[in-house]
């Protein structure tokens, strides 16, 4: 086990470095001079040169990359062009909101997806299985931003039950788990959870069906094990794959919520990324991407380790 952990940790290092390289390149594939966004249009060539020097943009790219990486490693992600504040502070504030949304959507999708998938798998080809199948096929094909709009139409426009925008009341000064804030969380949670729930349910169902087909389940039945104990064996064997998928989906929720956050004006990382793009705030774009991608790499690492802890076959291969 220890050997596996060490090997997996070592493997994450080059991936993480590759990720930083991709994020660094983002600014350099951008058309135009990254510096031009900083200065007024009437800036002279001299001023441009000066600014380039100040930001180190006159150095060769590998040197720029090394300097940027060095700064990022100690938490210095540069300064946002739009707000003038450190990128790290902006991202940290947004991460809190995104984590709140991801945790609530993650809990909902994992619980529901797990239960639906298990029930469908145990009742294979029954009515429930067909219903769940219909539900999950729709789920994986659902444009989540459209679902978000539908939810707003039904629950905010028609029924006026829940607020369509924001994290809390206008007077809010920070998130608290009270009703005023929680009611803002309901619609974004539903919109974010839909696709992951469907994916998890499908994985779990496939896993359960697969295990039920195996010979050892027949042996367990033949030796008279009560159904509840057999169920435990089924879950135990279907779980590793489902856990891995859950982890990846959680990562997607943390990173891929750009669209849902835009619809609900939820001030998380996705919202931050979108505003960075439209203000051509390249340091903010770069910083947000770096944090999100690093988080995703880390999460993948955790998923692999958890998976290997629950499934000894992986460690041996």
């Amino acid at each position, binding site marked *: 086990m220890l050997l596996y952990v060490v090997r997996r940790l070592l493997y994450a290092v080059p991936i993480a470095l590759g990720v930083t390289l991709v994020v660094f390149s983002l600014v350099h594939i951008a058309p135009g001079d990254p510096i031009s966004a900083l200065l007024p249009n009437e800036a002279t060539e001299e001023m441009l040169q000066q600014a380039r020097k100040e930001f180190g943009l006159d150095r060769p790219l590998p040197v720029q990359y090394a300097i940027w990486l060095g700064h990022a490693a100690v938490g210095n992600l540069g300064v946002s062009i739009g707000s003038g504040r450190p990128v790290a502070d902006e991202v940290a504030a947004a991460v809190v909101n995104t984590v709140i949304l991801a945790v609530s959507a993650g809990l909902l999708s994992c619980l529901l997806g797990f239960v639906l998938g298990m029930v469908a798998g145990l009742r294979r080809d029954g009515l429930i299985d067909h219903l769940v199948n219909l539900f999950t*096929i729709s789920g994986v094909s659902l444009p989540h931003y459209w679902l978000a709009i539908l939810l707003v139409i039904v629950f905010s426009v028609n029924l006026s039950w829940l607020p369509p925008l924001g994290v809390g009341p206008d007077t809010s000064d920070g998130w608290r788990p009270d009703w005023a804030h929680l009611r803002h969380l309901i619609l974004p949670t539903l919109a974010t959870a839909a696709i992951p729930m469907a994916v998890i349910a499908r994985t779990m169902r496939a896993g359960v069906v697969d295990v039920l087909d195996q010979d050892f389940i027949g042996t367990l039945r033949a030796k008279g094990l009560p159904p509840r104990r057999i169920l435990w064996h089924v879950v135990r064997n279907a779980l590793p794959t489902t856990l891995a998928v859950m982890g990846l989906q959680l990562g997607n929720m943390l990173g891929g919520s750009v669209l849902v956050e835009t619809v609900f004006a939820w001030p998380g990382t996705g919202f931050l990324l979108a505003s960075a*793009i439209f203000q051509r705030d390249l340091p903010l774009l770069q910083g947000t991407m770096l944090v999100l*991608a690093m988080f995703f790499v880390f999460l993948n690492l955790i998923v692999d380790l958890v998976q290997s802890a629950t499934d000894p076959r992986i460690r041996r291969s």
Partner: protein
Amino acid sequence: MHGTLGGPATIDAAVAPAVRHNRYATVVLLRFLRQPVPMTAAVILLVVMLAAIFAGFIAPADPFQTRVARRLAEIGTPGRWLGGDELGRDVLSRLIYGGRISLAMAILPVAVGLFVGGFLGVLAGYAGGRTNMAIMRAMDVFYAFPSILLAVAIAGALGPGLVNAILALSLVFIPPIARMAESVTTQVRSYEYVIAARLTGASTLRILREHVLSNVAGPILVFASSQVSVSIIAASGLSFLGLGVSPPNSDWGLMLSALRQSIYINPWVAALPGAMIFLCSVCFNLVSDGVRQAMEVRR
């Protein structure tokens, strides 16, 4: 098996693969036609595609013609059967025309991903060793980003526009298809008849063409087709954010984003473009599922 045994066997070998191939394709097609749900989905997609291609003949109105009196017209208004948008343009006609860009934006990136990713994957799988390491580790790096996030960031950095959006999406679909291609190719490479072909001195190109490609093409194609349902959601999402097609041209994503401003006046018209994205995504999913099942060898 190719021309190595001499005599009648050679004739057999020369004829058999071609015949078997045709028959296999026919069997798959027949099996597909017998599945009611995927067939229905295929017909729906065909109708939507034909409508998009022949939009000029089918659309009841000019999709760019604004009409102040018909602004935010309700569903069922004569001349604006599916309502009017914020400038009084016909939503039905705009949906029909919008399909052109939405479908192109969904299919093109997967096609690029299929060629580039398929090539890289087969190369990595067949070459093995260091080549495999280099290609697959590079793919792993792109895997380390949530896919929609990567598309948004690249499209955002490149700047809004249709070409940039398609480029960004293509980059997103290369790694998963390469991974899939690599794993099936690695498997096929170790089959005994491929090893036998190599031992009898068949050239690499010939082995690739006759033994590897014919075996891996099916699974790779099916996997790529399943990605179209993801692609249409991501592509329309980019347009929804304002990173795809630019006005006055429009696709379903941009329409959804524009009509969203009027959900308090005309909520159900606003939901229509999203319904088209959903419908196409479900149908692509069902068709790809159907093809996969038709290709499965019965146990």
